[in-house]
């Protein structure tokens, strides 16, 4: 590139006498037809946690890919330890001390934890892998995280949260000087997050520079020193975290000021019960789950990871077998053995992992929207193209899906728009009760607001809405009542207006229990 000689035009020691370890200067990255990064700056000090915030599509991941060598910048430069660097692979970056923990887990499920941590750099004894040393070394890093994981465990036997901890242990083992964390807490429980933050503080004191990407703005204050905002591929500002509020950050991210995180509720619950579950049981995972849902109500399911919220919803929907329990819709007891039965009765479940089991990513928006109700746009088994296109277009307009065409393939959409397509699928089915499982996970602030508005609108149209979420603010901001789960059981059903985060947590952790 043309900038080799300019690498020393700026002193590497920056403000406050703190030493910059990594900086990206005036980075420009173009893709065909798109300016993905437009003159972006990022300056990371040793021993600092630097938050990088922006909506999905703001260019955070692209910038990280430029820094770690996955992409080459078209203009600008990456300076590491005072030298301009060009990494041609992630491996190169890793070798000099830059490590990234991806949002999606990059573990091999059929290998052990130790084998994963040392994958590609196994300790050898002669020609053979030194398994003992490998497991002992891996265990040291796992113990530092104070997680109860054995180095000899198979990764596939671990929950997603624990796999995330393995990723972090792997990063520790690389002795990184710069650590990039992309949404590390999205699947962790409160106590695991606490432990992770302790580790982050420890790393900080050892002089490691950490770039921290997260949508959970409220947790930033616990660890972050400075924050850089990106919007639409451009650089907005970098400030000391102490000088700004969460609202400032959100405003800068979306380019407008969001008055509130949640829309004002238009719907209000009436007295008539439209949906009821009695004594639902599922082998080992749920026992005696009962609740009612009223017309116009948004009912929350709260609880820690693995508390049985998703498991109960899937059993109600027929996606997994239940051992006992009644499901009553509009006064009628339903017999549900498979998702088909639930769908025919008007019950829908929007799964927590869109890409894994909600969306057919290789198919178009149109095909996804009509997937659950092809019969409505076909006659005698033949699909009517015009009717199908009309249905898809109406749904795209109703939900404001941002797309050039209804023939766009789903994987090319942003997370928020993908979620809207999945919702569209169930609205097209005229569902009466919708279970939303973590509908806003991995979605940016602006899109979240649109989803909240949609939930409210559905409730006001008389559709029963169940919101399963791990985000307590979401429970408090959106629901009328909340069902709190703990180890497969309902611990309490609370009026949202009369409760608070602390009380919900007491029920969720099993400290308190209501007589039901």
């Amino acid at each position, binding site marked *: 590139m043309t900038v080799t000689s300019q690498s020393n035009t700026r002193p590497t020691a920056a403000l406050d006498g703190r030493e910059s370890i990594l900086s990206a200067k005036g980075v420009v990255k173009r893709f*065909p*037809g*798109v*300016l*993905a990064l437009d003159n972006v700056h990022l300056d990371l000090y040793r021993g600092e946690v630097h938050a990088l915030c922006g909506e999905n*599509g703001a260019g955070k991941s692209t910038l990280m890919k430029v820094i770690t060598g996955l992409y080459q910048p078209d203009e600008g430069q990456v300076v590491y330890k005072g030298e301009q660097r060009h990494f041609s692979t992630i491996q190169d970056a890793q070798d000099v001390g830059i490590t990234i923990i991806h949002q999606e887990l990059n573990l091999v499920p059929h290998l052990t934890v130790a084998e994963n941590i040392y994958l590609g750099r196994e300790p050898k004894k002669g020609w053979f892998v030194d398994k003992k040393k490998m497991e002992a070394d891996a265990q040291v890093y796992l113990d530092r995280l104070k997680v109860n994981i054995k180095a000899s465990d198979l990764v596939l036997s671990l929950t997603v949260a624990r796999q995330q901890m393995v990723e972090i242990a792997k990063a520790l083992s690389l002795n990184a000087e710069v650590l990039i964390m992309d949404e590390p807490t999205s699947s962790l429980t409160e106590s695991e997050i606490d432990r992770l933050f302790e580790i982050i503080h420890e790393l900080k004191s050892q002089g490691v520079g950490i770039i921290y990407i997260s949508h959970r703005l409220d947790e930033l204050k616990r660890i972050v020193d400075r924050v850089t905002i990106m919007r*639409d*591929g451009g650089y907005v500002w970098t400030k000391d975290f102490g000088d700004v509020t969460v609202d400032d950050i959100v405003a800068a991210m979306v380019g407008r000021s969001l008055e509130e995180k949640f829309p004002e509720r238009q719907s209000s619950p009436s007295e008539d019960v439209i949906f009821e579950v009695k004594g639902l049981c599922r082998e080992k995972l749920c026992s005696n789950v009962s609740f009612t849902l009223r017309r116009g109500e948004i009912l929350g399911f709260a609880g820690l990871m693995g508390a049985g919220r998703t498991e109960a919803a899937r059993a109600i*929907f027929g*996606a997994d077998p239940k051992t006992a329990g009644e499901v009553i819709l509009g006064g009628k007891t339903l017999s549900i053995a498979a*998702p*088909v039965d639930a*769908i*025919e009765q008007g019950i829908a*479940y929007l*799964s927590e992992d869109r890409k*894994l*089991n*909600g*969306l*057919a*990513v*290789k*198919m*178009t928006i149109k*095909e996804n929207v009509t*997937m*659950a109700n*092809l*019969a409505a746009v*076909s006659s005698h*088994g*033949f*699909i009517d*193209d015009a009717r199908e296109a009309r249905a898809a*277009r109406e749904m*795209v*307009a109703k939900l*404001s*899906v*941002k*797309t*050039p*065409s209804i*023939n*766009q*393939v789903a994987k*090319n*959409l*942003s997370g928020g728009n993908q979620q809207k397509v999945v919702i569209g*699928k169930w609205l097209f089915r005229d569902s009466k009760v919708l279970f939303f499982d973590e509908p806003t996970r991995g979605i940016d602030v602006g899109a979240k607001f649109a989803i909240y508005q949609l939930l409210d609108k559905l409730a006001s149209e008389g559709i029963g809405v169940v919101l399963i979420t791990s985000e307590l603010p979401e429970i408090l901001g959106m629901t009328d009542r909340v069902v709190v789960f703990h180890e497969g059981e309902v611990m309490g059903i609370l009026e949202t207006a009369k409760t608070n985060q602390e009380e919900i947590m007491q029920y969720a952790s099993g400290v308190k229990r209501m007589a039901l």
Partner: protein
Amino acid sequence: MATLEQSPGEAKLPIDRKDLIQKFAALAGLVLLIVAFSLTSSAFLTMSNGVTIALQTSTIAYIGLGATCVIITSGIDLSVGSVLALAGVVAALAVQVGVPVPFAMLIGILAGGACGAVNGLIITRMKLPPFIATLGMMMVARGLALQITGARPVSGLGESFGALGNGSLWRVITEGDNGFPKVIFPGIPYPVILMIVLAVIVAVVLRKTTFGRHLYAIGSNEEAARLSGVKVNKVKIGAYVLSGLLAGLCGCVLMSRLVTGQPNEGIAYELDAIAAAVIGGTSLAGGVGSISGTIIGAFIIGILRNGLNMNGVSSFIQMIIIGLVIISTVWIDQLRNRK
């Protein structure tokens, strides 16, 4: 419409256009082959050779159609080569015991469908991987075909058994000056007509029916399809039954051409079927594929064999060339998708 504006970062080709490019590339390859062989061999671009190629390609095409449907669900059917042999000998044996030819062939085709149904049941009920289930069926069906015939060809079937494989439509023959018959137009062989009709039907099934849409949905994301109320097991069994029926038909046509029931017919044909689908752009990962692509793929294989034969290339070299063609077409396809 305001919501349909293009947002940056999502500017990618819709699949339709991508599909078109893929098909255009395969079609261009086909045309290139035809041009190349026309230049190297004067006998290549003649009416009668055209008919020969179409006839040879038709057998790959029948089972290629079935393979496409199965591969779209992200499955695979390795049993078709054996199933077609079983179906063919069943039809031949039926004729031997006095069943009229059309009914005998129907029995053969249904035998193929039954094999497909067993494949489907093993895959959906016993939850075995399609590779294993159909590998087993490949051996079982071949063994059955050999056992019921005592490994001997079934002959003495009469002329009517050969009509389907050897007859033609619109064949025009006049008597030449020397008294011998002279072929003005060789006619369109029945197997070729059958290929065209079946290709159109299966293409319509894939593109226009709910069954077809469900095949794509299962291949794209099986769990999403199940949670959307798609009867995944039924649809999958349907795909394997379709593949079995088409294999059965292929067996009947092949045996009819030989006017003999050959229990050793069709060895490794499943690989031609899979190759035709893959060259035509069907993804082994599922969710992607088209009939037009598979037909082009079948013709690429058929024309390569025919043209290389005419140029005196040995069958061993032919295998090498076709193998390289499969590797390079899929490689090109992946390069295109990686962007």
